[in-house]
C-alpha cells in the first residue's frame, strides 16, 4: 500500500471545492455570513476548526504558513496547527509576518502591516454579532437582510449607561463596506483600525457555527460608535517591558502574588524583531545580541 495517508492539506478535494465556493461568495458579499458544510476536524471545536478548514482550502504547495494564537507563535494551539499543515501539506512554515503568505490567527492581527499577497485567516467562535441581543437565528438573519442594526447600538448604549464609556474591548462590531455589521472575531478593538482598507484578504471561518465570511482587500471597515462617544482603540498605557514598543498591543503578565506584573507585546514576532534590532525595555534580561553570542559560543 503506497497510497498516501492524507490528501494534500488533509481535506479531500470535494470538501475543498465546497469551502472555496463559500469563500468566493463571502468575498463577493463583504461581511455576509455564508453557511458552509463544516467538517469534523482532528481537533476540538473552539480550537480553530473553522480557521483550519479555510486554511486547508486555500493552501497551495508554494505557500508559506504562519499561525498565531493571541499574537504568539509559540503557544500550543499555534504550534499544533503549524505542525498539522507542515505534516499534511508539506508547506513551509515561518514565524515572520513579512515572509508568510497565509497567516492563520486567533484573536489578533499582526502588528507588522500586511501586504497585498497575504491572506489572513481568522478563527471565529461566534460569527453572529447580534447573537447575545437577539437569540433567534431566523430573526438575526432577517435583520442582516434588511440592514436593521439599531439593536447593535443598544449594546453600545448599555455600555455607556453602565460604565460611562463604550466598554466593549474585544469583538467590537464593525460595519463592512457600508452594509453588513460583522463580528471581527474576538480580536481586541485595538486591532479594528487595521482591518480598514487592508491590502491583504481577510477570511473568517467559524467551524462549529458553520459560517464563513470575508473582507476583500481595500474594503472600508468602520467600527460602530456614537457621535458623542467615538470609537477609541485601547491599549495598556505602558511600553513593552522587553522591546520598549509604545504602539503595540500588550499582554499583562502577572509575575508574583504581590501585585507584580509586566506588560509585553502580544505579537511575539514583532517583539523579537524589535529586540533583534537593538530595542530593549525595562525588564530585558540582557541585550539580545550578547545572548545570541552566548548561544553560538556554547
Amino acid at each position, binding site marked *: 500500500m503506497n497510497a498516501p495517508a492524507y490528501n494534500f492539506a488533509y481535506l479531500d478535494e470535494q470538501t475543498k471545492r465546497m469551502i472555496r465556493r463559500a469563500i468566493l461568495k463571502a468575498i463577493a458579499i463583504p461581511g455576509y455570513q455564508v453557511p458552509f458544510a463544516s467538517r469534523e476536524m482532528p481537533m476540538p471545536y473552539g480550537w480553530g476548526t473553522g480557521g483550519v478548514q479555510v486554511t486547508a482550502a486555500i493552501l497551495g504547495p508554494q505557500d508559506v504558513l504562519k499561525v498565531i494564537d493571541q499574537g504568539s507563535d509559540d503557544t500550543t494551539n499555534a504550534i499544533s496547527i503549524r505542525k498539522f499543515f507542515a505534516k499534511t501539506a508539506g508547506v513551509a512554515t515561518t514565524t515572520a509576518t513579512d515572509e508568510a503568505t497565509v497567516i492563520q490567527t486567533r484573536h489578533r492581527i499582526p502588528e507588522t502591516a500586511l501586504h497585498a499577497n497575504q491572506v489572513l485567516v481568522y478563527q471565529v467562535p461566534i460569527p453572529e454579532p447580534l447573537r447575545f*441581543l437577539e437569540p433567534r437565528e431566523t430573526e438575526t438573519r*432577517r435583520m442582516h437582510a*434588511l440592514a*436593521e442594526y*439599531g*439593536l447593535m*447600538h*443598544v449594546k453600545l*448604549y*448599555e455600555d*455607556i*449607561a*453602565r460604565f460611562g464609556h463604550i466598554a466593549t474591548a474585544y469583538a467590537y462590531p464593525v460595519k463592512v463596506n457600508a452594509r453588513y455589521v460583522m463580528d471581527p472575531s474576538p480580536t481586541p478593538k485595538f486591532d479594528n483600525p487595521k482591518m480598514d482598507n487592508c491590502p491583504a484578504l481577510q477570511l473568517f471561518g467559524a467551524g462549529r457555527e458553520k459560517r464563513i465570511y470575508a473582507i476583500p482587500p481595500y474594503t472600508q471597515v468602520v467600527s460602530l460608535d*456614537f*457621535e*458623542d*462617544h467615538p470609537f477609541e482603540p485601547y491599549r495598556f498605557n505602558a511600553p513593552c517591558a522587553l522591546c520598549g514598543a509604545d504602539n503595540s498591543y500588550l499582554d499583562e503578565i502577572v509575575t508574583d502574588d504581590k501585585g507584580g506584573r509586566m506588560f509585553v507585546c502580544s505579537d511575539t514576532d514583532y517583539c523579537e524583531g524589535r529586540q533583534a534590532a537593538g530595542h530593549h525595555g525595562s525588564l530585558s534580561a540582557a541585550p539580545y545580541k550578547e545572548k545570541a553570542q552566548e548561544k553560538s559560543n556554547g
Partner: protein
Amino acid sequence: MVDQAALENDEPLLVAASLSKSFGRIAACRDVSFALYPGEVLAIVGESGSGKSTLLQMLSGQLTPSAGHVSYRMRDGITRDLTTLGEAERRFLFRTDWGFVHQDPAQGLRMAVSAGANVGERLMAVGWNHYGRIRDTASDWLTRVEIDVARIDDAPRTYSGGMRQRLQIARNLVTEPRLVFMDEPTGGLDVSVQARLLDLLRSLVAELNLAVIIVTHDLAVARLLSHRVMVMKGGRVIETGLTDQVLDDPREPYTQLLVSSILPP
C-alpha cells in the same frame, strides 16, 4: 381657507375591508370591515376565542388575511394595501408610525437591557447616533409615563408590573406613531394600577392625537378609553357603535349579556 389638518383628519387612517381568516376548518375571523380615523380610539371587545387577537394581528400586518385587505394611509398621505408592502417597509412602519403594546410586557420589552435603552431602541433603529440626545429623549419619556428618571439604567426585570407596562408604552410612543395597537394592556394588573395606567393612556392619546385600536375583554377599559366599540362573537362583529351607545343601550342579546355580566359599581 382650507384647513389642511382638518382635511387630513377627514380621511381614514386605516381601512379594513371584509377581513377573514381561517385556520383550516376553523374560521377565526369572518368578514370584518371598518374604518379608523386619526385620533380615534376603537375598542374591540368580546370573550376569549371570539377572534379579537386574530383580527388585531391581521390589522397590524403580522398575519396575512385569508380574504379581504387592510389599507393604511402612510405619512406621505398615500393609502396603501398592507399586503403590497415589502417586508422592509412593513417593519419600518412597525417601528416608526405604529406602536404595539402587548399584554405581557416581557414580549414587548427587552427585559435584560436598561429602561433607557428600551426606550432608545426605536430611535437608534431610525438612525439616531448621538448618545446624549437619545438619553435625554428617553428620560423625557420616562417622566411622561411617570417612571422615576433615577431608574433609567435599571433593567425592566427589576420593575413592577405597572411600571413595565408604562415603560412599554413609552418605548412605543417615542417615535411619535400615529397608530397604536393594544392587546389587553391592563390585563394582569391590579385595579388601582389599572386605573392609573388608563388615566395615563387617556391623557397621552388626547395629547398626541393618537389613533388606537385596543383589544380588551374588560368593558370598563373600553368605556374609559374608547370612542367607538366593536363587539365580536364567534369571529364576527355583531354590534358596533359609539361607546356609550353600545354599552348603555346594547341591542344584541349577546352584548346585553356582556354588559349585564359586570357587577354594578
